[in-house]
């Protein structure tokens, strides 16, 4: 029996095409979908009203409950379409307070974390935090993505300064123990299975994968070292799958630190980066698996 053609909309914004590695990945998705007999169209925000004519929506624009991507996701979901990323995943992964609350509830090993409300931004509480986690600590806005809105602070003055900036948008912030490593594992997960594994190297002299240069608008990123998913440590994959199981069965990128022989989850991201020649380097079936998931 011939499989019926499916119409897939890939929701993108202009910036998705500014990096050739991402643009190539998007073209790979289109090529793969068409090879499998499906129609694959890029949908920009001007065409959101076309959602009902599609069978599935694949979101590549940055997701957040406050961004247009959430409206696309929720609209598709309400209309009964298969959608990656689904609204619930965006809701959970888009807010790190929500994410760590679930980690805590379901026993997912994660970086020691506490939450801070505006009322708690006072000397006594900050002393307690530094006493508990040592110096420096990591201050994270719940809406962080692409290493932005995550800062390392070593004194009360800079803590207050950065916290006040993050509090402009969110009334609760995340404070974490600083755990420096040479790289973060990135495990791509789709529908409860490992899709790809790579190492996101930390640039020399820095502490996170993506760093904004002082006074310049550009980011510098550490190298991405891909490996076959079969060759990745079993315990790593187990931790990644456990972290995703409390969120849903969509597409996720799990950041994990290996510290003292243990794996601790840094965060789970919906809408993970997929760049041609990077995440897909050792697992070429990434595109096919995602397209098949969208149309099944």
């Amino acid at each position: 029996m011939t499989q019926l053609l499916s119409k897939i909309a890939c929701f993108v914004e202009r910036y998705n095409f500014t990096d050739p590695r991402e643009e190539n990945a998007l073209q790979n998705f289109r090529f793969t979908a068409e090879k499998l007999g499906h129609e694959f169209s890029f949908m920009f925000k001007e065409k959101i009203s076309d959602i009902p004519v599609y069978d599935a929506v694949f979101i590549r624009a940055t997701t957040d409950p406050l961004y247009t991507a959430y409206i696309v996701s929720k609209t598709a979901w309400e209309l009964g379409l298969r959608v990656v990323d689904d609204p619930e995943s965006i809701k959970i992964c888009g807010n790190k307070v929500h994410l760590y609350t679930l980690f805590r509830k379901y026993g997912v090993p994660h970086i020691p974390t506490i939450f801070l409300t505006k009322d708690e931004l006072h000397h006594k509480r900050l002393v307690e935090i530094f006493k508990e986690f040592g110096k420096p600590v990591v201050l994270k806005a719940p809406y962080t993505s692409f290493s932005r809105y995550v800062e390392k602070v070593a004194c009360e003055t800079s803590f207050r300064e950065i916290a006040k900036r993050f509090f402009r948008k969110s009334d609760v912030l995340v404070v974490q123990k600083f755990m420096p490593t040479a790289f973060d594992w990135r495990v791509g997960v789709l529908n409860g299975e490992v899709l790809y594994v790579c190492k996101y190297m930390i640039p020399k002299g820095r502490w996170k994968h993506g760093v904004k240069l002082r006074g310049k608008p550009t980011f510098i990123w550490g190298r991405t070292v891909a490996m076959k998913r079969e060759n990745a440590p079993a315990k790593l994959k187990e931790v990644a799958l456990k972290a995703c199981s409390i969120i849903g069965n969509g597409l996720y990128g799990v950041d994990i630190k290996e510290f003292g022989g243990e794996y601790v989850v840094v965060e789970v991201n919906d809408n993970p980066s997929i760049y041609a020649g990077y995440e897909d380097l050792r697992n070429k079936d990434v595109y096919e698996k995602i397209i098949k998931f969208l149309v099944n």
Partner: protein
Amino acid sequence: MDLLSGVPWVLVVSNIDLTTNVPIVSPSTFLGLSIKDFIVNINNDYRYLKIGYYVSLHAETLGNPVIPASGNMIDANRTPVFLLRSSKAGIPTMPYIVTGSVKQIISEVGFPVVIFAVNPFIYDGFKIATNRSSLYRAMKSLSMNYKFAVCAIPLRGEMFSFKSIFGKCELEGDFEEVSEMVYKVFKIPICKLHVQRVDGKVHLCSLQPVKREELTPSDLRLVSEEIFLMSRHGDPVIV
């Protein structure tokens, strides 16, 4: 959970001073508690990332029934999602398009048109454009220089904005009916509704938060009364 038979323990988490016999705690206090109760989250602002959102999220994580649900807060404050879900629930709504294109609004909606922001930074009010230049001005402002999409709704009648408190409002007739229906779907205790009356019929346009100073003593009395009733009889809509 069946709450028709009454709720033995109601905990009100509020950022507003209320006069009620039901126990009340502040949002920041509640975030540090692990209480198992039915939570009524009273706040003038239920936007995503604000303290009211975290109160409901915390209650849900504890496994408590709570109004409003955190998911409803997100959806209610995203105008296109709000209209889609309202429409599915049978509430009369205005047609809308989500777009970042002036040309598309002109060709598909025409003039006059009501523009609502769909971006992370602008959450109150709307702009009415009656011609091309006023539409460009509205778009530039509400799309934050065309960075974000907007929600465009045709203006076919008269716009009304009013407070809805537990689904009750000061206006009568169709307005009251729409207000009650919105509460049944989203269960946002305090909000402002924007509607359009077209040929005598009220159509929903948007929901937005209420500023603290907009709440009058009679609004606060109404909130207190509703909480009192809820603590005695339960919230009849939750089954």
